């Protein structure tokens, strides 16, 4: 059942994807498609956003009150739903980003310098 698989993947990615979305929206309003492209861009193509999990994630953030959305018109004159960070979302971003950095540093410390010949 595809349903179940998607949900599991979403669960794994959840924390990270939410953080990335919030960060992207901190720079300005975006529609879903734009968010996906922006993440891809800023990670220099390293992070590929699964379009299938993007919208459930947005949904969650919206429900949590961290983003709000409104229908609007895109640059190329398409109707799209635009997301915007709320004040609560901004606080959440700061909190999550801090946690993520601490986590990344800790993981980096554990990993140590790159081992050769491994």
């Amino acid at each position, binding site marked *: 059942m595809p349903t179940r698989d998607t949900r599991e993947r979403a669960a794994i990615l959840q924390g990270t994807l939410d953080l990335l979305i919030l960060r992207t929206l901190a720079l300005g309003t975006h*529609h879903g498609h734009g968010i996906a492209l922006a993440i891809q861009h800023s990670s220099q193509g390293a992070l590929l956003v699964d379009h*299938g*999990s993007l919208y459930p994630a947005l949904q969650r953030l919206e429900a949590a009150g961290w983003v709000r959305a409104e229908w609007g018109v895109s640059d190329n004159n398409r109707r799209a739903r635009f997301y915007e960070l709320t004040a609560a979302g901004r606080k959440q971003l700061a909190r999550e980003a801090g946690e993520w950095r601490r986590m990344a540093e800790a993981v980096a410390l554990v990993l140590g310098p790159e081992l050769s010949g491994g």
Partner: protein
Amino acid sequence: MSLWTRWIRRRSDDDFAAELESHLALETERLVRSGMSAEEARFAARRAFGNMTAPREHFHDARPGAALESVAQDVRYGLRAMRRAPGFTAVAVASFAIGIGANTTMFGAVDALLFRTPAHVRDADRIHRVYFEMPGSRGPLTNHGYRTYEALRDNVRGFDAVGAFSARPISSGRGADARSIDAVLVTPSVLTMLGVRPALGRLFTADEERDEGDHVAVLGYDAWRDRFGGDSTALGRTIDVAGTPHVIVGVAPRGFTGLDVNRVDLWLPIGVANRIMRPGVVGRRAGGYWLEIVARRRADASEAQLVTEVTQAYRDEWRGERRYETTFGKANAVLGPIVAARGRAASPDAKVSLWVAAVSMLVLLIAAANVANLLLLRGLARSREVALRLSLGASRWRVARQWLVEGSLLAIAGAACAIVIARWTATAMRTFLVPDAPAESVLAPRMLAFTAVVALGAGLLASIVPAFVTARRNFAPLLGTGRAGGLQRLAWQRALVGGQVALALLLLVGAGLFITSLRNVHAIDLAVAVEDVLYVNIDFGRTGKMRADPDARASANATYTAILDRVRQVSGVSNAAVTFGSPLGGGSAMGLRRRGGPEPAGAVPFWRAVGAGYFETMGTPLVHGRLFTPADHVFRAHVAIVDESTAKKYGLDRDGLDPCVYLGSEQECTEIVGVVKNTVLWEMTGDKGSIIYTPFESWGEEAVNMLAVRTTGDPAPMIPAIRQAVLAASPDLPWADIRPLSEWLAPQLRPWRLGASMFTAFGVLALCLAAVGVYGLLSYVVTQRTQEIGIRKALGAPDAGVVRMVLRGALGMTLAGVAAGVVIALAGGRFLASQLYGVSPRDPFVIVVCAVSLVVVAIVACLAPARRATRVDPMVALKIE
């Protein structure tokens, strides 16, 4: 935040879908810009998205209340499906209504008999009824003498309270105002041990047990309300108890009925028995088994230990008494539960009720199997729909759940119908089984809760198989043609129909066995014209110490004679006679010695002193010799008549009548002038006889206590006329108990009547349900095989062949079901054996008749589908493709 949530909730599925569409459009555009063809780009955009439905479902399911909403959707869908197939829905709902209705009907009675502990009782699990069982006896002895109560009270340390009680009707008031009151005589300890608190006033004090000081009484709540208007001034007023005024000191709480379920109007100290029964029954003397004993176990006493202790106390009581040492002196104690029906001494009614309740469960099973089958067949008819839903991404659980929802809906509809039906049937059943228990509506919470639980259980039971089959089946091949296979492939369905047939057979066999038992019981020659006799009983003994007072006795006898004269003149009365000793009960014992012979060992015959015309009134036939003549009565002749078993026992049947035997302690000869047939004694199915009859006038020392009246028609409607005659003869009498003799036997017949009628009713329902099962399955198969049948016919198969083909399938599963049913009936029959009379639970005739009728019904159920099969037009059938 809450504003946001509200907004989210308002966001529709369509809105979300639009967002996804817009995403796809944007992505496609981007890809086109990067050089893809429009076609490729659209495809790639979609692929990048993965499963389009998943996020939408996710969106949908993640919303608050989504789970509820999806069930609501299932319900709506189920209701629509039910509406679309009204025939199917009607049969399924009717099946459930029958199954659930049967259970609701039985529940009220079984609940009152079995599940409820009596109201207002504390520590019910520590309260025991005390029985004694003699080795080799058929059941425990439930009634005891006062002395036994004292022995247990004084000697058993494992009890912290012991009490005794006796329920009996009591005459209150005189003449036209006289009435019979349902009273219970108790030791004060019974009420304190049960922990009951009075609604008003007080209960009895310990020193009131013997009724030696002021005469007191406690009113039942309903009697207080009905007779005293629920007025607190009832306290201190008096109520007449068999001629003695008793002061009302309290009112029992509402609904309190002691240990039993019957309504109680008056509570009296046990000592009253000395006045209304016989002087000395409440005293040190042995004899008289009229009390039930109840005791409360100490919290720290184990039951096993107690049984030993009680047994010991009981055996000690009888030690040294020659007559009882080998009987009661060897008895073992049995501690029964407070709810008598749960224990060893359950009444036959209670036992049969339980059987019937179990049978109603079987009916429900059959009904559930029926609905399961219908759902399965519906499922096959709807398999394209199911396959479509699955292929569109619905989860199997969701599809399976649809069945559970539909099954539950059908069950709920069935339960609603069942409640409507049970409003009558449950009341009737309760009135029949526990007539004196307070009535309860089917809409009472307990009844509704039971019905709801049964309905949901039945709904789940019926839909679990279809749900399971749906979840496992591979539907893909069905998407094309939408056809399912023939009978061979419908294994579940065949098993369900076979199971229904097996259960239906069990019920039919049960019905057959009970009907045969009832017929056998009716065929017993009671040697009494039960249907045409009623008796009048005015217990003067209740109003005074009759035995000790010859004048009172003479006046009572004179009153009876006066009544007899009046009653004989009532039109419709063909004969009447006075008697001492109730016609169906025992009475005093009377020894008989033949000249030169010792008294044979064993039980002494009962003695019955009868007035002129007694045998003619009772319809007891003479075997040889003669009946008493008027001269015997007038001249107080020393003559006697014995019944056949007495004659046999004393050798009177070999030697003929005897001119001189000695009765009791008499030194004077009595002549045996005739032998009559054995009459029923207590139990219809028990041993008959033995009885010695003497003319009433010859033995002046007993008081008449009964008047037997023979009527030309049904005796019941004559009761008012006879009561008038009684009052006309003597206007100042206590309550006259006037009842048809058949009413005495009715409680004995009831278990068989109940078993026969309920097993038959449920058996017929089961038969109908099974027939519907067979019919439904066969109809479906014929519809499914229309094409095959058409081809066969096109190839020249005769109609008979087609019918045979349809019947063969049906007979196969019916016979398998019958075989399974017979095996279960043979194996389980012994459990029913004790409820039957004169028929083996494995009676071959009953089993064969039931099996054959089931097969016949199954064949009849196939006829319509078979005929439909013969009408298949080969051309039409072939064109279906």
